[in-house]
């Protein structure tokens, strides 16, 4: 928990809570000021390896203890101390956005694009935010919990257009 204490004193407004998990420390942060915190972690504390960046949708999650619907989860790793740190930023449903960290890691570019693609979380400051896995004209965000599970391909707009075109041709 040493890192949490340090972060808490350095960024009192940003850090919300922290706890120890099986594989490393978890620190929950606020959106505002998060960029400074992670930049400090990268430049001063040696967390140079961004392993993962992903979104989680907590709609209807039973054991939930917080209000916001989404969470953006960062896994960063310190090579010298062999320390894994999980950072979480909670994002409310009404204005789903988060600051982009592409200025720190180019790697985050596609992670953020994927997060936007799957959850509709907008990353402010991202140079090229568009869908990556789904088609560019896809509607809806597939990994959200309220996304229809048994939808048919007929619901996809380009497919309908294609069928129409085909019918007209005979």
């Amino acid at each position: 928990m040493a890192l949490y204490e340090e972060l808490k004193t350095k960024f009192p407004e940003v850090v919300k809570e922290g706890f120890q998990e099986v594989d490393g420390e978890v620190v929950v942060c606020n959106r505002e000021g998060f960029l400074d915190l992670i930049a400090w972690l990268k430049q001063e504390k040696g967390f140079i390896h961004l392993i993962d960046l992903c979104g989680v949708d907590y709609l209807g999650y039973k054991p939930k203890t917080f209000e916001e619907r989404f969470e953006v989860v960062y896994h960063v790793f310190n090579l010298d101390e062999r320390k894994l740190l999980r950072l979480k930023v909670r994002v409310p449903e009404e204005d789903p956005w988060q600051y982009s960290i592409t200025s720190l890691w180019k790697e985050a570019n596609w992670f953020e694009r994927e997060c936007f693609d799957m959850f509709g979380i907008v990353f402010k400051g991202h140079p090229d935010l568009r869908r990556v896995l789904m088609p560019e004209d896809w509607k809806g965000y597939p990994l959200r919990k309220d996304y229809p599970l048994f939808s048919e391909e007929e619901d996809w707009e380009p497919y309908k257009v294609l069928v129409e075109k085909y019918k007209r041709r005979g």
Partner: protein
Amino acid sequence: MSLVLEVNKKQKGKDSWEEPFYLNMGPQHPSTHGVLRLFLELEGETIVNCDPIIGYLHRGIEKLAENLNYNQTIVLSDRLDYISSAANNVAFALAFEKLFKLEVPRRAKLIRTIVSEMARICSHLLWLATHALDIGAMTVFLYCFRDREWLLNIYERICGARLTHTYVRVGGVRRDFEPEVIEELYRFVEEFPKRITDYETLIDTNRIWLKRTKNIAVVSAEEAFNLGLTGPCLRGSGVSYDVRKFRPYDAYSEVEFEVPVGQNGDTYDRYKVRMIELRQSNWIIKQCLDKLSETEGELVLAENSPDLLMPEKVREVSAQPHPKLGVMFKPKEKEIVPVGEAFASIESPKGELSVYVVSDGSSRPWRLRIRTPSFVHISAIPHMTKGHMIADLVAIIGTLDIVLGDSDR
């Protein structure tokens, strides 16, 4: 904005004589290793701009996993990087074991180490084959496939499948090795180093090979971290970061091996690193085989490991499907697995493969996130190809060792 849209915009108000040369490489192309599409802006043969477009093999594995129980998701993991599926199985199992707080028997750990190193050899052989073929050396291709075939046959003896094994279970492995398998593996381990020497004599001193790989796509150590390169691509840049050493899992803490690193971070160094890794993997398998005899007769699956058919209907289906949103799942009160989250990463042959799982207590994961190396590596292609030629692009795709099943999930 996407390059495709930009092009449409640019072409409207421009003199057609100044128009750059655009080339749409893929999704059907012999050397994009699957259905990768690269939209290239060329100046002569030099690449000015490159926009990789993926998603043609997107099967929604993360979404599917949310509606399957923990053991069933391991079947999905085979389909990620289908060349080294045993390694993917291990990654999933490790994350779930952390969540369930399961202790894996030592014999199972050793067996897992063996199969994941076999997967590494399989994957690296296929990489060498296709990389050499992309650069134009045809013969290496078939030599590598010949030896990969041997390993696939061993896999078939182990679990009955050649590509999609589903051999690893949460809490261990499905069944023990037969004595014949161990004998065959010993034979393989003895013979394989000679084969590696064979490949190296074919291409290592070949001047054309050196010309095509030296100083191509040079990535410095700092840049490699910035781009998120992991695995052999990162080690080729001189960083000795290996998950097997930094966060040991399975039996890697008890075996000896070296982590090879390159110096210049060019395509040749990455090639060299992988060739050394082949030898190291061989050595690891040999050590594990020796240790297997110590654990003769032990269980290979933890006793309290979850049943294959985890209790059904824990997340209840809502009676009336929502008119617009379809069927919704609701969790019931009963807890089957601990609530919480777990993160596990392994050194897969292609790079760092990590699994992050969030549980709500039901038999199905609430969220399963897979970070695949190919996804990140493809995102690095535009940065690495700038200023190179089309022929180099093919070499760069080869050296990054991407599999589209891995990146699209």
